[in-house]
């Protein structure tokens, strides 16, 4: 493998870091690890890695705090959230803070490496669960018509998200929709951007709405 992105692991559990590090092997270069928010920000600023694998819950803060602090310090890096949590609040908040994707810790190591490379190249990574949240958040049935185009998904984007939620890989989606993988990636990135910029009520008050449903 020619391209070896540099990676920083942020997780408060030593065992998880050790496990992820072992799984990644030499397919990426892990340059540093951190166990809490302050340590993480320092290490990321210092090493400026291609990708930060970020846990959503940390002692003394959240993954979103780390992203905000690093962006504040003007460091260019990509964040991939890696967490056991599957609560929509956690996922949406870390994505809105600027993470390029979200995968659960149950992910297989090949897929994790592929996701890291994808994020390092500036693309978005959607686990089926995240895609499900996105469809839920952008579904129009429960809310007033959207005014802004970042507040709704195009039919094609929705189609891509639904296939992702059904467990399809980018490659399989491309074949099924007879488009190139690059186009699938473009759609995914567009959805990510909307996820981050949208002013939709659902995304801002996710937790509140979930309680009504």
């Amino acid at each position: 493998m020619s391209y070896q992105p540099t990676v920083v692991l942020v997780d408060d559990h030593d065992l998880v870091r050790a496990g992820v590090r072992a799984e990644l092997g030499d397919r990426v270069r892990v340059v540093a690890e951190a166990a809490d928010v302050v340590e993480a920000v320092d290490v990321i600023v210092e090493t400026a890695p291609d990708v930060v694998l970020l846990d959503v819950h940390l002692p003394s803060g959240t993954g979103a705090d780390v992203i905000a602090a690093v962006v504040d310090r003007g460091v260019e890096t990509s964040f991939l959230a890696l967490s056991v949590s599957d609560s929509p609040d956690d996922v949406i908040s870390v994505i809105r803070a600027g993470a390029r994707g979200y995968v659960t810790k149950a992910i297989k190591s090949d897929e994790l490496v592929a996701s890291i490379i994808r994020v390092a190249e500036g693309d978005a990574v959607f686990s089926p669960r995240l895609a499900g949240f996105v469809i839920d958040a952008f579904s129009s049935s429960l809310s007033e018509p959207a005014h802004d185009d970042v507040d709704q998904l195009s039919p094609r984007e929705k189609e891509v998200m639904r296939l992702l939620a059904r467990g399809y890989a980018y490659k399989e989606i491309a074949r099924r929709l007879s488009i190139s993988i690059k186009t699938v990636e473009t759609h995914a990135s567009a959805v990510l951007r909307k996820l981050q910029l949208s002013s939709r009520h659902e995304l801002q008050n996710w937790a509140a709405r979930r309680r009504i449903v």
Partner: protein
Amino acid sequence: MEERSIPSAGQPYWQMPELAEDDRLIGGVAAGIGRELGLEPIWVRIGFVVLFAMGGWGALLYGAAWALFALAGRHSTPGGRAAPAERIAKGKTASARLAGFAVTVAGLAILAGRIGGFPAEVVWPLGVLGVGLLVAWQRLSGDTDEDWRSPRRWLVVVGNLLVATVAVIVLLLGIEGVADAAGSVLLALGAVVAMAGLSAPWWWRLVRERDAERQARARSDERAEVAAHLHDSVLQTLTLIQRNSADPQAMLNLARRQERELRNWLDPNRASRHGESVRGCLDEIATTVEELHGVPVEVVAVGDCLVDEPVDALLGATREATVNAAKHSGAEQIDIYLEVGEDGIEVYVRDTGKGFETDVIDEDRHGIRHSILARMERAGGTAVVTSAPGEGTEVELRLGQETNR
């Protein structure tokens, strides 16, 4: 005064009195002396007040005795207090001891009168102020076991605040020239400062203790709930895992089930869905298939609705499809996607296993496909099975709008 209410003298010989913390008004000096003397503390207190009236000596003596007793108490061991080098016997009866004490006080008073005291206009306000401060601060700090909200304590604190304020006013009035010119302003200011100074630590403590108490209660409630839950679930599972440690598949299943349970518990929204909603039922299907066949089943759901008859059929077909995938596909994982939308309910069951030729179907497969298709048709829905060798399998189940309430 009745004989029985007078404390006994305890030891027959004189010892150094101890500060009577439990019976004190100020520092416990008078009560301590009273206890050692075998007198009601009130007499000792009267003695101090008399001496205080004689030019302020009472306060000086009180302070000195306080320091002495405190110092002696710190160096003494239990039951071994300081005693004079020569053993001096105490008076035999309470009245004799009281008479002795009264004579002593009278003598000291006469002595004080001869020597002359401190100027009265300074002694009185300072004395009262000092007592007020001492009592207030004593009550505020230290003894946490006494309930600080008891009415008696409130009374003591508020009374002392008033006394101290009056004392400051009197002191200021006593200073020449204050009474006329800027007097009133200074008076008011003095009173405010005295009140604030005295009450600040008390308010602070009051607020702090109330917060601490509330937090502690919330914490202990939460802890009890978590403990109960962990005992029911996680500890049970750990025990089971220890028993089944020879069987990796059983361990995996137990771990997965425990994970699901914990997630449900952590997300109350999920737990409330169980049994009554499509989403809850799908979670249950996933759990049972995982347990029976040892293949992880991931459920992604968008929207939710209540289960009625057609939806029940849909769930039955979903279960068939999931079991089928777990048994035959050889896939490492099965994905279920549910979407409840305006125009119907859709469920996709997908695996990336070995797949099969959809037109070459053995008896077993045929049966399962038949039951899936027939079920969906009876419920007014559709089922589509997509598969090819090496491509995995996807079963698509759909209920239209007319069946979606």
